[in-house]
């Protein structure tokens, strides 16, 4: 299974959407770090390198990252279908659930790859604001960017890493959803579109208050949430991910290719 996962990662690196995503996520923090109107739009004056990761994440999590993750997760299967390489894969003595399972593993880990690049680029872009402790907040802890006083670099790093991991968890069901739609439609664009449409519809469903606590989209900002709400958010995200993956695997087992 490990060799299959490594093979999937190797294929992933060949996708244009991945290269595009890596370029975008590397450049965006640099653009924000030089943006002249941050204080007007976000009420933020950057005073430390440790504030850049939150700024970068907040700006991309709303739309760009879900889109990039959805596109690539859909491409994991859709690209194989369009290139005709899915059939040769399944002609080998390989269980279908293993073939798709390897893709799911890669799809779920892929957001962490993107977030790592975003984090690294954010720290590099923010380095000129200072690497040491500072009076303020990272944007992820209590008090937001204003903070609760002086923050040591290690504490800041801890908050950032924790929030980036949670962000990775919030993107996992989106990746699973895109791959599931890819199994259904056998097409990258249709699957990515269906993923974005589903997320938007789920966001609109907050008009039903009794549903809000169960909507996936209610937990996509869990990375800025409090520890009290975090556990429930992670459980819901996990349930969504497992349920979506199971549906995808079930459909794939029965699918004519």
């Amino acid at each position, binding site marked *: 299974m490990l*060799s*299959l996962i490594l*093979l999937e990662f*190797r*294929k992933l690196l*060949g996708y244009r959407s991945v290269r595009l995503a890596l370029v975008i996520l590397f450049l965006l923090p640099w653009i924000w770090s030089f943006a002249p109107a941050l204080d007007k739009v976000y009420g933020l004056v950057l005073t430390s390198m440790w504030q850049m990761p939150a700024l970068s994440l907040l700006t991309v999590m709303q739309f760009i990252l879900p889109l990039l993750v959805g596109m690539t997760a859909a491409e994991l299967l859709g690209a194989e279908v369009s*290139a*005709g*390489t899915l*059939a*040769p*894969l*399944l*002609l*080998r*003595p*390989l*269980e*279908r659930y*293993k073939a798709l399972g390897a893709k799911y593993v890669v799809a779920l880990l892929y957001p962490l790859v993107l977030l790592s690049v975003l984090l690294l680029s954010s720290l590099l872009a923010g380095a000129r604001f200072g690497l040491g402790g500072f009076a303020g907040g990272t944007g992820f802890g209590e008090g937001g960017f204003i903070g609760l006083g002086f923050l040591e670099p290690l504490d800041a790093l801890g908050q950032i890493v924790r929030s980036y991991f949670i962000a990775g968890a919030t993107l996992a069901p989106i990746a699973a959803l895109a791959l599931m739609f890819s199994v259904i439609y056998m097409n990258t664009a249709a699957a990515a579109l269906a993923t974005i449409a589903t997320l938007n519809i789920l966001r609109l469903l907050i008009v039903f208050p009794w549903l809000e606590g169960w909507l996936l989209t209610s937990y996509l900002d869990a990375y800025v949430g409090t520890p009290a709400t975090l556990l429930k958010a992670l459980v819901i995200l996990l349930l969504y991910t497992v349920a979506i993956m199971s549906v995808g695997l079930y459909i794939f087992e*029965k699918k*004519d*290719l």
Partner: protein
Amino acid sequence: MGELSEREMSADSRNLICSPQSPTRVENFYKTLAHPICYPDPVSNIKAAHSSVATKDKQNANIVVQSLAKRYGKYTVLEQVNMVVEPGEVYALTGPNGAGKTTLIRCITGLVFPSEGEVFLKGHNVYTHGTAARSHLGAVVEAPAAFYRHLTGTENLEAHATMAAQAPGAKRVAKDRIREVLSLLEIHRMSDRKVAEYSLGQRQRLGVAAAILTDPDILILDEPTSGLDPLGIGLIHRILSSMAASGKSVILSTHHLREVAQYAHTVGILSGGRLVDQVDLNARQNAFKFQVDDPTRAAALLQSLPFVNRAYTRANHTIAHLESDFDVSNALSKLLNEGVRVMEVGPDLFDLYDYYRERVEQ
């Protein structure tokens, strides 16, 4: 139960023991396995024609297709397809565009699930025991063969080797074997170049290289010579012929009838989703054409002889498939003794292309 049970196989084997003396068994076989339109014409239909296609041993067969049907809603793509391919046999599948060849190949390889019927590869049900079944399989189901374009030819074959090693108890394909198949297909000099740089023909050769990588017992190829130059076509045919000679079973879909007729043992003609005929090219070697005054009566008389495997009429002639060419004089004597006027006797030189055209036009 996924595997072909012993009881089932022995029962089928009993049905498969058919001879000219036991037409009931032959008829039973056609009722249970094949379908009536496998008979070449009304005369042989009545007289229960015998062919070695009908006598194939399912128990030892590498590929068994039973009552396969595939429907998409109301649209029927395949209907009641039955095939048996033995070790060492080359089975060429042909038919007009849209006849269902690709769907049949995808059903046999387990990529498409049939609406009815079963497929066994080396006795393993390809739908319920896919891993075991496909561990004996090498296949190319697209023309041209598809590969990861950003990887080199060698890297693509390494990826195939990785996937092939997923079978329980499978050994990893050695790098020497990868070099060997690349050399065999005469694309070794391209091996370190990305597949994106390959021509159509080179990709097709790489496809065959991937299919034979694990030295499988069963080889299934959908139009393997598509996009190849004449030398490439000859090379592929030589490789397939040699694999069959070493005991492998080969199914290939093709439109190159005259070329495959040189080495294929059986030709299945698919039309409108039905396997309308399975031509045993070996049996054709002892086929003789009798120009007589009453072809129908002559066919009936010849069919009653023990050394006549099959007799039927075609365009005012009687065609008889004999056990050997030494039986021609005996057949002739029988006809003359029964008062049939025989104007001419000669070998029935078989042109697969003409035969195909005739069958499909029917």
